[in-house]
């Protein structure tokens, strides 16, 4: 993600430097973290990036087909949904190859407070320049037109069915597929070896705890980011003042699904597998209650979100649903605090971890 709104605010609390001294339990060992790093990288991150790579390749194919057969719009939209599912399932990871070459912004420039995606897409559509359809063009193009929000605007309107509009759609889908493939490959070839080599301390990471800190940021920070950007901004100041168009992916009517997928991914990151997990580590530190509360919150959030039978676009304007979503927001806030507390117990200093919520 993201744009101006989330040119994220980063706060390194000086206080955390001192908090560590007050923790009574022995911190988890570097070896314990290494086991978690390896498990999460292999079972959580790599498969999710592979899914993103394969689904976006299918999307690129589907848009190519669309340009030959305009009646295939639904198939292309379905392929978009699969790609967006995959992206929402790995959006929380904001370190590693996704950072390189501004891929994070390039995959999804959002929220777009200045309406740049609309403006710049309209310009491309009116110019109809074939030079703007090449991979070379997209390498240097504005982050506002080369990712998933631009694709959504084209595919969920009549624009993708015009000849040039379709070519542009296919070109953007091609760019997304290329980025996704490269990210998946680089995780295998570069980031995985770095994580494997962390215990030696002679490569990219100083130790396993440093590598684990990046994974833990991917667990904790998104709870707050998702709440602020995806929930509170459209909810705004009440059902009668709601701003539904601030919802993510409202055109493809999947705003709530995105949030659920985000939380499901974070829950998986937290629960690990039967032997190795952040949750198990917390329990081993004598924090069973906290560990279970976090787990319960993930379950509750999923249940509550599943109970809403409207799109987020409609729900924010409906008083009853608005109230339910405010509860969800409160639960997410509580979950975020608990995760922060868990990080203190585990002696992980998140560093760039805090956003100003205004």
């Amino acid at each position, binding site marked *: 993600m993201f744009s101006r709104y989330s040119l994220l*605010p980063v706060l390194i609390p000086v206080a955390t430097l001192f908090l560590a001294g007050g923790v009574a339990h022995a911190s988890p060992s570097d070896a314990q973290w290494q086991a978690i790093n390896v498990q999460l990288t292999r079972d959580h991150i790599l498969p999710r990036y592979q899914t993103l790579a394969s689904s976006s390749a299918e999307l690129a194919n589907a848009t190519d087909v669309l340009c030959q057969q305009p009646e295939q719009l639904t198939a292309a939209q379905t392929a978009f949904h699969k790609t967006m599912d995959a992206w929402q399932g790995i959006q929380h990871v904001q370190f590693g190859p996704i950072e390189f070459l501004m891929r994070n912004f390039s995959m999804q420039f959002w929220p777009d407070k200045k309406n740049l995606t609309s403006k710049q897409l309209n310009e491309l559509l009116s110019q109809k320049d074939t030079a703007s359809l090449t991979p070379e063009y997209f390498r240097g193009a504005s982050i506002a037109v080369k990712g998933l929000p631009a694709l959504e605007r084209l595919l969920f309107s009549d624009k993708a069915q015009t000849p040039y509009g379709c070519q542009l759609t296919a070109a953007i889908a091609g760019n997304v597929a290329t980025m996704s493939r490269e990210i998946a490959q680089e995780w295998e070839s570069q980031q995985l070896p770095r994580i494997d080599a962390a215990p030696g301390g002679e490569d990219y990471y100083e130790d396993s705890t440093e590598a684990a800190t990046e994974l833990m940021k991917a667990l904790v920070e998104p709870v707050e980011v998702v709440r602020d950007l995806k929930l509170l901004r459209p909810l705004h100041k009440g059902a*009668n003042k709601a701003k539904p168009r601030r919802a993510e992916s409202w055109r493809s009517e999947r705003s709530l699904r995105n949030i659920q997928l985000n939380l499901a991914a974070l829950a998986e990151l937290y629960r690990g597998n039967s032997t190795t997990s952040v949750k198990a580590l917390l329990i081993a530190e004598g924090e069973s209650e906290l560990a279970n509360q976090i787990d319960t919150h993930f379950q509750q959030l999923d249940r509550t979100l599943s109970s809403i039978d409207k799109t987020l676009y409609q729900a924010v304007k409906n008083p009853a649903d608005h109230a339910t979503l405010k509860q969800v927001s409160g639960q997410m806030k509580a979950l975020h605090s608990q995760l922060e507390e868990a990080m203190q117990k585990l002696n992980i200093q998140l560093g760039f971890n805090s956003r100003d919520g205004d």
Partner: protein
Amino acid sequence: MKFRATVLSLAIGSALLTGCADQMQKEPAAAPTADAVLGTYADIALATYEDSLTTAKALQASVNTLLANPTEANLAAAKAAWKAARVPYQQSEAYRFGNAIVDDWEGRVNAWPLDEGLIDYVDSGYGSESDENPFYTANIVANKTVKVGGITVDASTINKKLLAETLHEIDDVEANVATGYHAIEFLLWGQDLNGTNPGAGNRPVTDFDLNNCTGGNCDRRRDYLSAATDLLVDDLEEMVGNWAVDGAARADLMAKGPQGGLSTILTGMGSLSYGELAGERTKLGLMLHDPEEEHDCFSDNTHWSHYYDAKGIQNVYLGQYTRVDGSVVKGASLSQLVSAAAPALDEELRAKLDNTEKAMKVMADTAEAGNPFDVLIGANNPEGNQIVQHAVDALTDQTESIEQAIAVLNLDGIELEGSDSLDNPTSVLAE
């Protein structure tokens, strides 16, 4: 929107070591008192806002002349007066972050970016709707009544009250900028329709001509320009008062005590350098390649606005400001204070501030030679992008020394404006 990054405490260790080493090598200069430094800082604020007010009044006079007699020459004179008014105002921006009175007020005079379709007619390329802003194309100049969503606006009379109390940030959307320098800029220049090619906005003077009106509703456009300019003068008068000897901003500053006051100066320097100027106003432009991603997007005056922002940061550090009449306000400085604690750090920071000024000057000279900021940030302009990137790098570099100064003076816990476009280790040029 506020984004925060704290000053890295990581810097503390190395900075302190540097400080000790320096003291062993050199005789530290005699340090001024913190109170004296804060006094200079407040005096420079007063002088800078006074100059902003004087130049805004000159702008007001030339706008009145333009409206009395809408000729090309009078429009050009009003534009020149606007640009001249930016010189002192931009230097005041170093006071924005850290002084609550300034930060709360700033949105009225210098809010940016704006959805200019709120105010007047726009080109079709601007688009007709925005997910973020229901008032994206409200066009107050053309519409005496605007109904959007649940809100009805009676805009039958365009005056200061309508702009300041109803339209500005209407519907809680920050891009609804109805007042301040940039609203006036849009009215004087109009949209810059040259994309990332050379050329600024080119509003015809007849847009203000009652007898030969272009663009429609010239009477209302004139009212708007007049009200916005008068409002700017009012707002600046208020801020001058805040920094007078008995002013509220000065009192707030002094009430913070020596440590708190010095923190305020450094917070302002660091936040403007990094999150705001390097990030929001510059780096983001390189990422978006959009002609409106420049601070003064209608006038193409961004290079000077950036230059004088950087100058303002230098002013507060050196405790010295050259007024628009050429006289100099000068006194005990933060630089002297840092020098007493860590001479090498002071030298380094002064050198970095100079370096930023040079990078900004290169950008300004390139712009004046026909390649303004929106050309320089264009896609497929690697040379131009590089010139802008140098300014970002210089600002980022000086921020690191500002952070060290905070550590050396033992002013922990300061939050600086951060920027994800900067914090991500990415390179636009590698794209």
